[in-house]
């Protein structure tokens, strides 16, 4: 799989390149700002664009804006945002545009090489990867809503679902059986009053409701 990287800190950029190459990605371009990123994506049409949020010249949300542009202009390119701190609005912006092929991780996660490579592969393949801290922070804004009816365990399961994990991944993380996870997920669907359509669609809806980016 091919990747493009935008990160203004050279040290970290080199690290991200090394990790992705070790994970089997082919890094076609590494740039230091949003304009460079858009040009590189236009040129190389990569499977994934990994980008910092704060970049020159404004050092505010250049990376997020570039990511939204990439998602609308090149739907085949997935986007993984790296951020120094959690800003849930960025995650909401990204996810309300498209829930497939997006990720939002804290920069320090790159150090967990294998997990980071896993997340990058998942996003490149059209999945989702949200940092646990992003998920936790999104919960803070919850006012009274159906999510309050969830048990702590169900909440954990939903958080992991939002992070893009499969049932097996969730079971491994919580050290429970696959069956227990399915039961929790069915309870979540019931408590959130989600229609009994196909399972994947309900899954996405549950996550969206959880993130507060879809209407109740």
């Amino acid at each position, binding site marked *: 799989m091919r990747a493009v990287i935008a990160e203004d*800190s050279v*040290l*970290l950029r*080199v*690290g*991200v390149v*090394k*990790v992705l190459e*070790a994970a089997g990605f082919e890094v076609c371009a590494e740039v230091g700002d949003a304009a460079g990123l858009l040009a590189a994506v236009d040129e190389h049409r990569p499977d994934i664009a990994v980008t910092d949020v*704060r970049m020159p010249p404004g*050092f*505010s949300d250049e990376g997020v804006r570039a990511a939204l542009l990439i998602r609308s202009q090149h739907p085949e390119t997935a986007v993984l945002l790296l951020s*120094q*701190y*959690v*800003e*849930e*609005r960025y995650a909401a912006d990204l996810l309300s545009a498209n829930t497939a092929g997006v990720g939002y991780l804290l*920069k*320090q996660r*790159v*150090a*967990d*090489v*294998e997990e980071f490579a896993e997340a990058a592969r998942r996003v490149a393949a059209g999945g989702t990867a949200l940092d646990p*801290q992003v998920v*936790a*922070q999104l*919960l*803070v*804004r*919850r*006012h009274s809503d159906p999510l309050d009816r969830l048990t702590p365990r169900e909440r954990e399961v939903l958080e992991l679902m939002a992070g893009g994990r499969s049932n097996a991944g969730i079971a491994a993380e919580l050290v429970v059986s696959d069956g227990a996870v399915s039961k929790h997920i069915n309870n979540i669907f019931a408590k959130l009053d989600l229609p009994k359509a196909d399972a994947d669609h309900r899954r996405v809806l549950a996550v969206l409701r959880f993130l507060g980016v879809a209407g109740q």
Partner: protein
Amino acid sequence: MARYVRRPFQGAGRATALLAAGVAVLLSSVLTVGLLWALLAALALWSWAWAWGVAVVAPVAAAPLLSRIQRQRFRLLSGVGIAVPEGLAERPGLRGMVPWLRSAAGRRQLRYHFLAGPLIVLGGALMLACWVVGAAAATVYLWIWVTSTHWRADNPGYTAKAAYLTVAGVALLYGAGWFAKALARVDTAAARTLLGPSREEQLARRVTDLADSRASVIDAADAERRRIERDLHDGAQQRLVALAVNLGLAKVTLGDLSDEARAVIDDAHREAKEAITELGNLVRGLHPAVLEDRGLDAALSGIAARLPIPVRVAVDLPHRPLPTIEAVAYFVVSEALTNVVKHARATRAEVTVEQIGGTLLVVVTDDGVGGAELSAALGAEPGAETGAVSQGTGLAGLAKRVASVDGTLSCHSPVGGPTVITVELPCAP
């Protein structure tokens, strides 16, 4: 010995010069007015009454000029700067004269020119006379020598009398030195009170100055925190992440390692990640980047997300407050929530931030055991029998930080809870 002889005269010269200048100013003023009066009276241009009128009106009209001259006198001759009272024109001109005379400060100037000043000048004249008479008496032998020998022949016994005179003269000189210094002090004090700003004005100005300097100290401390945050972010944090990434890569890519080597790399990797977390916590405590970039809402949600209990955050602000106020609000919420987790045994907490007029209202509520007291800051132990807890030191620190920007902090925390901490901070409406 010489020290005791000279000491009474030290500074007397300056004092004398100051007072002599005062005498000169008054004399020349009186002469000017007298001349004016005599001229008008002699010419009989108008009636006598007019001439008298001029004699009264002219000095009053010249009061601002006199004030300027007197201030110069003190500045040049005794090095005392007397400020112009707040709101009082130094050169009021014709139109400004009425408000000048009506103002309290203006009337105080008149009191100096027409009451305190002349009295002191009378004293000054007396002092000058003392100097002259004292000097003449102390040197009486000199005068006797220059007189004709006939006088000495006609006045036998002059030697003894002249000795008394000399002693009296020296005493008078000492007295004049002391008197000059005392009178100069009185003059300076009177001029300071009557020509300068009143005590209230001085205090008001001092308060303004102190408020300004305090604000700039707080702003400087704030800017320094931000600078340290940026430096750490651009330097140490990036390097640590790069280091952790490299160690992580080493772990994954170096397959043929001994168990010991692998353990060492594992340890180093874990340490590096912990260092990143610790540095991140430190930076957040200083001044988090998210606060500067995104404001209170994002920064407070960030704090809430890291806490082990659910915290609801509601920030409703029409615009961003000043950075200093934002930083205080952030710090207060951060500390208050830390206290809640540490002491309150709460299951949930709530933070609301809103603006009401010129006040930023921050309320932190928890459903814990209560019993938090501001006064517990003074070292009182928590009441063990009631199960109350002390959030003392933390709260006192918060109150200080809030007070530094003229805000108020109140804490309502009955034993058994709930605890409500309310902070009001000034902010532009």
